[in-house]
């Protein structure tokens, strides 16, 4: 946006006197305005478009001050300009002696007001219902009615916020455009003041009325306590809401500033700008290096980052200490004289404190750096520069990118830089610090300092947004981190706090949330902020979700993709709201919190809405949630010191969002082989290495996925492609090895290799948003990928009978993963060995052709419930075996039974025992595994042919009825009754029974005559016993013989 210099530069005195310059006057006094003198009364120009307020100058009734609230911001990455004040304007240039707007010939402002008045008169002059004055009055258009002695709506105390005038819906202030001639300054000592937005700071009418604005204190007494000193430090932070206009205009050095030339304006840059504008300021060669902490205070406001930093101004590696507060004020300035003339690059090397265990990064809110070069400000990711890993002996780490200072003729020129010191969230924050974060929403909202400027009615909806005001680190949550806009909204029902990205550092999921089209909003009566928000975003809808925790339902609000949206939002972006943080409080909750704040905390300091007792878990249905309690966090005085303080609000909240971030934690199945070491290797690795080709597959996979540039748009596709190929190769490699080495048909390398590869996927930073603890979020991108890995490495989808000899019977065989590994880590599962050995095999004389898959020992795979304690439903068997019911001639599920067993189980039951699986998940004892329909499906008998029964294969006729009686029905005198509940089938009531039952249920429903059943085979390893290849080979021979015999009965 085009910005203008505020006056006629030609009339300015050549050199501004130090006593008129913005900046520190003493330890206790700071001038917040630049004062100028001119040869004759210079014109005042609108530096930007905006609304105007005119107030009588409290020092001289012949003078007024003009307050401009810009509607445009300069494209300089500066903090948001909130108000600009022109001090000491000749009143007569705007208001005549009669108290009406001065003649239209005076300036653009009076001209426009009169023209507007004329139009108004023409439109309404004859309307008796419209009471128009005879002349335009400053109180009607310029807010001149506001005074500290006014009454009613005209009353505006010096301490009142200027927002009172600018957000008044009744008396709208006059609007002017950039460059407009507003009036005439007095020649001697006129001023120009710029304020920027800072949460908690409000420019008052006092500044709009006084001739000069200073921040002044009386000196602290010698016996001042630490608390007194902190209070002084805090109060001095007020200067951070102001900008030196010299630095401000100097900041147009590269972009250009419109400057009056007497008959129009010129865009001045570089030397021209310096010669005509900057050089006329006392601070012409002063650069502000304004470094803020994460909370937008000065660097060491909370005494956690130290007053010092190190810099090098001579372009050497020799950094020297500099006190950031060396001027006794919370901003660091640098004069040309300090920069070594030999440093022609005008670079500054900086190092910052890097507290132990922290990962700081510097946000270039506005500063040139060597990565981007002089003239162009870093944008996007370039704004974030992480401090070097190494620290020096003082604990300081180098900022790897030097700051570049604009210069002319080897001398630096005025400018304003702002850096922010952000810290990544750590699992172990410094609890002794005055303020610290445990999670990204923690201490994000200074809830009572975020004020809504609108003149609020009780039925409306109002929203105030503070741009680029903080930082969110979701690195451990979803790999994103970004600077944020934060806002507060009030409507008839809720107080809503919202934060969404302003500039992303990392955004591998490519959320578009940083351009959500909202700013300050004033919505009509009856509107709710969240409704307005989703209407503007259009790609999401707000729905109520519900968790079931310990049997108790807990509702929460969540955003979901709006599949119904038929219209495109204004810029066609699909906002995911993945990185939008929203907290809602009811009126009563807000009132309660406020009461706590007033009781527990002093007025002076910011109080944040914090989070405590953050617990991530899964509900009864396996849905991930995060539960936490709101607390208020801040500081207070305690025996002369400032200490951290927090207060409970007794308000709990629950969300489906991931709040606390951490790397994926191995689940129990993945952990059991990871914690056990042998010869310095994990057992997982030692098993994988038993087949070197498997190790190669695993290693290659991990190398490949770690090498994917997750910042590229196709990262997910690339990882998916690698996974499909590698997990398929894992299965085929295991199968090939076992069949090529019949005396060592080991299924364990496949099992452990799969786990290791899946863990590598789960721990990829790319999928941070898909994991909570050791859970993968349902339907998340990672969840989809894990599904693919299962399908490929268990041969779920690659079963094919295309190679079956003509006329041969098609036989589908399933095996199981190893289990009970906590008891015997060496455990193989002979059924899995069989599956690998028999895959693609042809039974003698081409009478049968076998295809196989291996299934996990995990309830969630069987019933699709992610709950660790309960579940009932269909899963992998229905999904992957089901389609073969009408395609094959026999389905044999195999699992491990007791030593010596080669049983064809007679009865399967729908009832589960529910003992722990490989995830240590359980199911409700004696619950049904699925919806069985009618009671005739309580148990289902095998349909495998009797031709199986050739020693050592025998039928197992036993079952346990509902009374718990164990019954051997080999005499057929006690067949289970139709519809009777069987607590156990012949193969008990664990997952081997369950796979038997599920296949039988599929068969009974779709193709009753299909031979299906369960082959319960011998366990070979006792506790602690290692795998025996030869014993397993013998077992496989027996199984194949049994199947061969069974096929003859088809």
């Amino acid at each position: 946006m085009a910005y203008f210099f505020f006056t006629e530069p030609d009339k300015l005195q050549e050199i501004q006197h130090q006593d008129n310059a913005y900046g520190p006057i003493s330890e206790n006094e700071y001038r917040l305005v630049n004062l100028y003198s001119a040869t004759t009364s210079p014109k005042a120009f609108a530096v930007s478009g905006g609304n105007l307020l005119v107030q009588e100058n409290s020092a001289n009734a012949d003078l007024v001050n003009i307050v401009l609230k810009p509607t445009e911001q300069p494209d300089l990455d500066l903090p948001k300009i909130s108000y600009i004040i022109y001090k000491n304007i000749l009143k007569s240039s705007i208001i005549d002696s009669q108290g009406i707007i001065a003649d239209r010939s005076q300036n653009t402002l009076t001209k426009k007001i009169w023209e507007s008045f004329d139009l108004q008169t023409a439109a309404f002059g004859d309307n008796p219902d419209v009471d128009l004055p005879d002349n335009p009055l400053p109180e009607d258009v310029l807010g001149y009615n506001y005074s500290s002695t006014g009454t009613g709506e005209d009353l505006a105390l010096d301490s009142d916020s200027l927002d009172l005038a600018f957000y008044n819906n009744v008396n709208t202030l006059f609007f002017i455009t950039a460059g407009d001639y507003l009036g005439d300054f007095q020649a001697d000592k006129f001023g120009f003041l710029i304020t920027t937005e800072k949460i908690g700071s409000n420019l008052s009418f006092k500044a709009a009325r006084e001739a000069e604005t200073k921040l002044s204190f009386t000196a602290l007494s010698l016996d001042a306590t630490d608390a007194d000193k902190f209070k002084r430090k805090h109060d001095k932070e007020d200067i951070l809401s102001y900008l030196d206009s010299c630095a401000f205009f100097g900041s147009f050095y590269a972009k250009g500033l419109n400057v009056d030339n007497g008959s129009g304006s010129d865009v001045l840059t570089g030397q021209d700008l310096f010669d005509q504008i900057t050089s006329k300021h006392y601070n012409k060669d002063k650069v502000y290096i304004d470094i803020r902490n994460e909370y937008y205070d000065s660097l060491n406001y909370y005494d956690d980052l130290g007053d010092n930093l190190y810099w090098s101004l001579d372009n050497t590696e020799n950094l020297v200490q500099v006190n950031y507060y060396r001027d006794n004020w919370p901003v660091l300035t640098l004069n040309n004289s300090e920069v070594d003339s030999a440093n022609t690059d005008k670079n500054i090397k900086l190092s910052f404190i890097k507290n132990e265990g922290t990962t700081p990064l510097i946000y270039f809110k506005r500063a040139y750096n060597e990565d981007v070069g002089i003239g162009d400000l870093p944008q996007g990711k370039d704004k974030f520069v992480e401090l070097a890993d190494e620290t020096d002996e003082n604990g300081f780490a180098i900022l790897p990118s030097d700051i570049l200072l604009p210069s002319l003729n080897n001398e630096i020129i005025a400018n304003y830089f702002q850096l922010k010191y952000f810290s990544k969230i750590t699992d172990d924050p410094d609890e002794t610090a005055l303020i610290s974060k445990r999670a990204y929403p923690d201490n994000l909202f200074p809830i009572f300092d975020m004020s809504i400027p609108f003149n609020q009615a009780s039925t409306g909806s109002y929203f105030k947004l503070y741009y680029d005001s903080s930082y969110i680190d979701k690195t451990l949550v979803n790999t994103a981190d970004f600077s944020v806009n934060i806002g507060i909204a009030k409507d008839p029902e809720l107080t809503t706090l919202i934060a969404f990205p302003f500039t992303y550092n990392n955004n591998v999921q490519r959320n578009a949330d940083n351009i959500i089209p909202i700013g300050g909003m004033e919505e009509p009566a009856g509107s709710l902020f969240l409704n307005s928000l989703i209407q503007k975003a259009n790609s999401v809808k707000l729905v109520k979700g519900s968790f079931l925790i310990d049997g108790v339902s807990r509702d929460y609000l969540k955003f979901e993709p709006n599949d119904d949206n038929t219209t495109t939002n204004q810029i066609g972006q699909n906002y995911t709201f993945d990185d939008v943080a929203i907290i809602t409080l009811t009126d009563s909750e807000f009132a309660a919190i406020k009461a706590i704040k007033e009781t527990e905390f002093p007025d002076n300091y910011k109080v944040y809405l914090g989070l405590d007792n953050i617990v991530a878990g899964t509900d009864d249905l396996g849905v991930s949630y995060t539960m936490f309690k709101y607390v208020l966090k801040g500081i207070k005085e305690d025996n002369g010191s400032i200490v951290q303080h927090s207060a409970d609000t007794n308000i709990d909240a629950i969300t489906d969002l991931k709040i606390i971030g951490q790397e994926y934690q191995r689940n129990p199945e993945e952990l059991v082989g990871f914690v056990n070491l042998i010869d310095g290797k994990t057992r997982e690795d030692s098993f994988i290495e038993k087949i070197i080709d498997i190790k190669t597959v695993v290693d290659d996979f991990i190398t490949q996925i770690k090498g994917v540039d997750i910042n590229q748009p196709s990262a997910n596709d690339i990882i998916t492609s690698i996974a499909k190929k590698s997990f398929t190769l894992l299965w085929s490699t295991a199968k090939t090895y076992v069949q090529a080495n019949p005396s060592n048909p080991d299924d364990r390398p496949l099992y452990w290799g799969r786990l290791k590869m899946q863990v590598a996927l789960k721990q990829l930073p790319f999928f941070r948003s898909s994991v909570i603890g050791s859970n993968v979020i349902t339907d998340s991108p990672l969840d989809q990928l894990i599904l693919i890995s299962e399908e490929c490495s268990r041969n779920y989808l690659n079963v094919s009978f295309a190679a079956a000899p003509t006329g041969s019977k098609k036989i589908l065989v399933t095996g199981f993963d190893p289990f009970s590994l906590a008891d015997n880590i060496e455990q193989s599962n002979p059924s899995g060995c069989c599956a690998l050995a028999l895959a693609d095999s042809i039974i003698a004389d081409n009478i049968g052709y076998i295809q196989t898959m291996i299934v996990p020992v995990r309830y969630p795979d069987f019933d699709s419930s992610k709950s660790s304690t309960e579940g009932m439903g269909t899963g992998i068997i229905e999904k992957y075996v089901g389609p073969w019911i009408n395609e094959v001639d026999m389905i044999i599920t195999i699992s491990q039974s007791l030593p010596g067993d080669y049983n064809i189980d007679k009865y399967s039951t729908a009832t589960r025992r529910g003992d722990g699986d490989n995830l240590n998940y359980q199911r409700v004892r004696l619950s049904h595994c699925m919806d069985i329909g009618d009671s005739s499906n309580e148990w289902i008998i095998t349909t495998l042919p009797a031709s199986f029964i050739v020693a050592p294969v025998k039928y197992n006729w036993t079952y346990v009825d509902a009374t718990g009686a164990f019954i051997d029905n080999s005499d057929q005198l006690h067949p289970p009754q139709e519809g009777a509940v069987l607590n156990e089938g012949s193969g008990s009531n664990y997952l081997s029974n369950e796979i038997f039952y599920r296949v039988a249920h599929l068969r009974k429903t779709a193709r009753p005559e299909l031979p299906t059943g369960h082959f319960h085979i011998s366990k070979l390893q006792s506790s602690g016993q290692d795998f025996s290849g030869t014993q397993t080979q013998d077992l496989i021979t027996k199984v194949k013989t049994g199947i061969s015999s069974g096929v003859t009965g088809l």
Partner: protein
Amino acid sequence: MMNYFAIILFMIVITIQYSCSKTYNIYLQTYNEPKNTPLQNDLKLKTMRDTQFVSLWYTGDFGRKEHVYYNLRKALPDGNYKVYINNVLKESETYKNGKKNGNGSKYYDDGSYSTFFYKNDTIAGVALQCYASGILKQRSVFSSGNLVLVSSYSEQAEIRSHTFYINEIAVRTEKFNDSNGEIIIKDQNDNKNEVTNRESKINGQKLYMYPKGNFIVKYSNNNIVDCKWIPTAGLKN
């Protein structure tokens, strides 16, 4: 010469009488020393030599023992075998020609018991199970070693149900309602190929026809006094 034959015949008679009347009492005992949960009670033979007659079987899953039971071995010497658990008679079987041949009985914990008949190791004819009171509880009909029909009775000796089986799968159940004597017939098996599609009468007997065969059933009131299973090869539907 006569004496010689007489002696031989006497010896044969003695031998036959001896072998047929030989009773083998086998004693088992439960003990509560599970070596491997969830097996609650294990069994052991009081006399190790009885292992030649009885085998102990365990059921379990995933390598864990869960239940134990015994079976009389096959090919035992001819004689009568009585199995006791904790000194309570549980089973009596007759072996001839090394196989189960003849009457047998089993005794259950609730006092009920069953009697049955084996022919060459195959259960045959009709097996009866009675309540502890002696009232008939269940009547099972076998054909070629396969269960064909189970009729169940209440403790008041009222018929409760008839269930017909094909290949161990119940294909038809006739239930008799307690309160009003209503008969509820259900072709309850979802096995589509086994659902009867025809029902007829032959000489006052009912004919239930299935693809794999037919039941010819003779009723007297609600009782089935005869039930034959004729595989499809014998009668086509």
